[in-house]
């Protein structure tokens, strides 16, 4: 089960995420295109000032779902490798919440695969984001 996997690198961590580490994982001599998405904490959401965010995860299931997405993206777009890192805990404005990195022989599938991974992550991975504003806090997406 835990044999080395050179094609999928999944990380859920309360420590800062490294773009270089993602790049080093996905890079390969046969690949000409690497695409990355980095999601950071914005100072405004729907026009409201945000002071900081807290990310909570149902960790074992989040990691399973992240791996499923990486595997699906690699198959669907013929990617060489996928790295998917997500942060947990308290994050400040500008901090990196998520990094997606993919490598591919050509660039078009790299873009498509990278976007697929972040879109799917936002739909299915059990991670929750509590937004803190000057006037209080709330869990995002939870209520109409």
């Amino acid at each position: 089960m835990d044999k080395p996997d050179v094609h999928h690198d999944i990380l859920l961590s309360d420590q800062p995420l490294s773009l270089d580490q993602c790049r080093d994982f996905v890079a390969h001599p046969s690949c000409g295109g690497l695409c990355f998405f980095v999601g950071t904490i914005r100072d405004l959401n729907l026009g409201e000032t945000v002071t900081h965010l807290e990310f909570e995860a149902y960790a074992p299931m989040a990691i399973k779902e992240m791996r499923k997405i990486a595997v699906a993206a690699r198959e669907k777009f013929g990617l060489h490798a996928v790295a998917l890192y997500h942060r947990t805990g308290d994050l400040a404005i500008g901090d990196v919440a998520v990094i997606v990195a993919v490598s591919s022989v050509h660039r078009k599938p790299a873009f498509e695969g990278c976007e697929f991974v972040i879109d799917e992550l936002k739909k299915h991975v059990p991670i929750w984001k509590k937004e803190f504003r000057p006037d209080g806090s709330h869990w995002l997406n939870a209520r109409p």
Partner: protein
Amino acid sequence: MKIHCFGAARDIAGGSSLHLEDLEGITIGDLRQRLVTAYPGFGELVSFAIARNEEYARDEERITPGDELVIIPPVAGG
């Protein structure tokens, strides 16, 4: 049985888990109904899913003893 709660579900349950009796053998769909009845706050969420043993559970699945059950309010990663 113990049901784990994250995010907005934790606020509704008033803690990181809640307990409901006699869940063995009922379906996930039945559990959803039981939850909304016991904690009306769950009915006020945009939606919520149930995870059984670290996988999204379908409403027709039946709960068996020892299952790990988790309420999954709308996710917001990324």
